């Protein structure tokens, strides 16, 4: 299915892009992250397991078990540091 992906802050910088639209087989946010990691550099490092990466699905914070749907907007970003 078609997924809109957005990146912010250090992850956006490491990837050199603020987002992309992809056709994905992933069923969950975690599987989508794994799909991106499988692309190799620079994705593998920026989203690597063990690194603090937070996710949002349709603009709400979620964990990686969250289920994707056609046309979903998924964002990956570092821990937040506002205020």
């Amino acid at each position: 299915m078609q997924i809109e992906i957005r990146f912010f802050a250090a992850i956006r910088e490491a990837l050199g892009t603020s987002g992309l639209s992809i056709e994905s087989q992933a069923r969950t946010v975690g599987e989508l992250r794994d799909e991106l990691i499988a692309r190799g550099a620079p994705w593998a490092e920026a989203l690597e397991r063990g690194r603090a990466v937070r996710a949002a699905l349709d603009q709400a914070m979620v964990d990686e078990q969250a289920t994707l749907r056609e046309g979903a907007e998924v964002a990956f970003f570092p821990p937040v540091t506002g205020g």
Partner: protein
Amino acid sequence: MAAAPISAPASGARVRIQSEDFDLGAEVAALRGTDPRVGAVCTFLGTVRDRNEGQSVASLELEHYPGMTEKAIEAMIDEALRRFDILDARVVHRVGLLQTTDQIVLVAVSSAHRGESFQACEFLIDYLKTQAPFWKKEQTPDGARWVDARVSDDAALARWGIASGNA
């Protein structure tokens, strides 16, 4: 450097994300309006400090997630209204390039009595710090660096019975 323009408070808008500066007095006046039930207003003002993690900081660049950031803070205010006997609240958060001593964030809460305003104000800034999508990048003498999330901020939110898991 010329001071950033100051925005007028948009009446009715509880959450504003903007590059412009804001006027605390005008925001409090807009929050209070002419509501005769208001007996207390508490505000938290966050500003750009000149040091962080042992290094001097000259400026900050703040990034956010347009759309989600506003929604997240609106939901936090709804939660504050459920938890505390308050009348109204508003949050103004700046983004873009900020200099030392600049204002970053304002949380303002009104209530009939002071206790609830104090609590709700602290709740909102604790919540915002770990759950609202903003990211700070500092300019230091060694170059630019992204600010790390603090475990102590997660602990601050945990006091309100909310698990953060941010840092």
